């Protein structure tokens, strides 16, 4: 990436916040294997057409096992936007979206992904494939167009509209299948986390739609769906999910051997990478490193003094930056709603002989697909388990799915004697992040936690 625009962005994010003790986060080394897996995955995506594979574009939940089992290549719009943001390559795509008239307040995942589609369409329309000279486009030139679109968005209505635009950008010709994953409102007298009439009704409703999805895939490939292969795929995923949860639970220790930010970079293997031995190896490696750190008393944050819970969507422009930021005030972000309450977080529900119902149920319990009382109850359980001192809410500007209920979450934290703070940012639009705002609020939060300890 050689453009002057990108140079500016890289120059800014390459520096580190001058803040606190100057300590850096002690990141897990085993997660580096994930970068290789992610790179291999995208290279596979870029090569899909040459290899004669059909491509599905999808948004929403962790639905790729259906595609993997049917020999399809899949592109997750959010993952693509998050990757561009994490690599600071999102600006060109967002600018193209702006140009067409998408408002800056619209989901930045969607704006980035749609902007990319528009660039691809520009390219396709240009006679003879006229080269786009702007180097910002480099990372966006290879994404294969969809043969199918699948939408499976829990909770957030924005996802369906985003895919509707995808359908339209590609000329309303690409077959599209929409799965509704309804909110578990939890208003009935028997409602609770994974219990009650609503839970059972909705589980069946989503499972039925997943069966329909396999028929859609069959109809658009002319091949029979192999349910045995789905069970095999889910075998790897279930094992990886169990290892991940075991590793997370080990972080109850003080100091916590891994932080929320290690789990953030571990989302890709659970969310959208192929369900094969690699993801088992990945989480086996993570768990082993956590075990070694545990034995050595090594923490993810040097001199861990405070333990925090992170609420909200990730700011993908700032993963390393934020990891260091918290480490610099001796605060370990031990757990988070996004990492610890999602991505096959209930693997015991999956019956490998007949996995679909359990898959539907995992999709339903995504971190914001419950009404606030049940969802917040689950956050409180995590905060108790990990002995959390404070809750940090990332008010991600264009993500209403994760900002909904954050005032209630902060209220619940305070009710149980925990500090709570907000900082502003966004999932994939760096312009909403205000560093100094986080600095002063984090300093104040640390002061408050310290004062509370002194008073105890």
């Amino acid at each position, binding site marked *: 990436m050689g453009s002057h625009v990108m140079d500016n962005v890289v120059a800014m994010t390459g520096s580190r916040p001058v803040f606190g003790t100057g300590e850096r986060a002690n990141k897990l080394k085993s997660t580096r294997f994930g970068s290789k897996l992610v790179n291999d995955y995208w290279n596979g995506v870029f090569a899909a057409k040459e290899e004669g594979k059909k491509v599905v574009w999808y948004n929403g939940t962790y639905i790729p096992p259906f595609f993997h089992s049917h020999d399809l290549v899949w592109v997750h719009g959010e993952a693509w936007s998050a990757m561009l943001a994490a690599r600071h390559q999102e600006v060109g795509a967002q600018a193209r979206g702006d140009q067409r008239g998408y408002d800056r*307040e619209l989901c930045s995942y969607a704006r980035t992904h749609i902007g990319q589609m528009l660039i691809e369409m520009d390219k396709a329309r240009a006679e003879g494939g006229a080269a786009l000279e702007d180097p910002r486009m480099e990372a966006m030139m290879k994404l294969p167009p969809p043969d199918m679109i699948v*939408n499976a968005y829990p909770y957030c*209505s924005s996802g369906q*509209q985003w895919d509707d635009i995808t359908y339209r950008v590609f000329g309303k010709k690409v077959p599209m299948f929409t799965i*509704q994953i309804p909110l578990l409102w939890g208003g009935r007298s028997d409602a609770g986390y994974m219990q009650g009439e609503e839970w059972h009704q909705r589980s069946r409703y989503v499972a039925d739609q997943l069966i329909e999805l396999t028929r859609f895939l069959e109809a658009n490939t002319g091949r029979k769906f192999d349910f045995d292969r789905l069970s095999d795929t889910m075998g790897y995923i279930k094992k990886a999910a169990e290892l991940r949860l075991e590793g997370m639970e080990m972080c109850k220790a003080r100091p916590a051997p891994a932080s929320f930010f290690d789990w953030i970079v571990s989302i890709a293997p659970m969310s959208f990478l192929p369900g094969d031995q690699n993801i088992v190896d990945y989480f086996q490696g993570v768990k082993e490193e956590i075990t070694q750190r545990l034995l050595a008393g090594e923490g993810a944050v040097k001199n861990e003094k405070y333990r925090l819970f992170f609420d909200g969507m990730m700011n993908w422009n700032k993963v390393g930056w934020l990891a260091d930021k918290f480490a610099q005030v001796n605060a370990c972000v031990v757990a988070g709603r996004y990492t610890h309450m999602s991505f096959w977080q209930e693997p015991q529900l999956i019956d490998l002989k007949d996995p679909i119902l359990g898959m539907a149920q995992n999709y339903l319990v995504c971190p914001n697909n419950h009404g606030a009382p049940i969802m917040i109850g689950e956050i409180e359980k995590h905060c108790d388990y990990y002995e959390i001192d404070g809750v940090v809410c990332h008010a991600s500007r264009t993500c*209403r799915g994760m900002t909904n209920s954050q005032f209630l979450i902060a209220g619940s934290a305070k009710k149980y004697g925990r500090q709570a703070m907000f900082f502003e940012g966004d999932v994939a639009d760096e312009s909403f992040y205000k560093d100094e705002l986080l600095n002063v609020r984090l300093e104040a939060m640390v002061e408050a936690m310290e004062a509370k300890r002194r008073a105890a």
Partner: protein
Amino acid sequence: MSPAFASMKRAAEQPMQYAADWKARTGRKVVGLLPMHFPGELAHAAGCLPVVLQDDAEPVTVGQANVFNFYCGLNRSLIDQTMRGNFDGLDAIMFGDHCVQLLGTADVIRAERPSLPILFNQLCTTLDANWALRETLGTFEQLWKELEDLTGHEITTSSTLASIRLFNRSRAQMRRLYEMRRRGEIAISGRDMQTVVKSSMVMDRAEHVALMDELFAALPRQVGSSSDITVYLSGHMCHAPKPAIIDAIEESGARVVNDDLYVGWRFIHADMDESLPPIEAMARWYLDKNRKLPCPTRTMQGIDWEDYLLGEVERSQARGLIVLMVKFCEPHMYFYPEIKEAFDRAGIPHLLIETEHEEMPMEALKTRIETFVEIAKRRADSKAA
């Protein structure tokens, strides 16, 4: 102003006061409806007063504690009103929509007023899915039971059919008024049209129907000025635009001839089939909505909002389109570029106005509207020439 219209205006301006008076008078329950696709007919059949919850003109103050400022004005106002106690007279809220912001608002209302039942039954959002009818029937059956539990009375098929007939009649009356305006037989302002529809959302429907009969009898038959440029209003899918914006449009030499606003044609455009069992009539009414007036919050392939708008603008003989986009309304933000490009291709002038709940810079807005009206006039003149 006719006495009938004055009654409508009072109810539209103070819906919760109207509901409180109605409750005191009848001793029956008041059920709030969160927009935008849930039928009030069922609550009416249960003997309740269904009231579509509206934003109010008050700036958001105490509500700021529970909602971010990057949420749309309706959601912020609903939360603010909850915290100010405006909805304390409600006996329940019915809610079935999918907009992510409204889901959060419902949760805040539940947290602030834990004793207020929220009958939440999420509707199927993929209207052309092969399971959509089955699922929608199930949703309304569940709601039927929950309303019976709320009131302690059985809801009969005959009472539901009677409610459907009444609501159909009410919608037909308002559609007639729309048609009269479109044909230029009456000169009703956009502001007054909003009052008529908004009052139907909050009043006892039988009372509103009677008032409409009176209104028709009293309406002076007159046409708008022939020098006015005719425009179509689109947008505002969950609540009413500020009347002052519509005034500014009309004071700039434009005449509103039609709209697809929620507090407008969108609310009244379709009836339920009285020949079907009531549950099925409600389900089909819901599932057919997009075929009759597309909504960007619902998925349906082959149905396009911009095509609908192009057709309706032509049918209404409007010379321009004014898009009223609620700030932070995600569904609208996704689809506006589609509308813009379609109207550009068709050579029909259009103007985007982003609206806010709090005060807007009306003078600057007027300048933009006046410029737009001039452009639309010139375009119309050159077409005529």
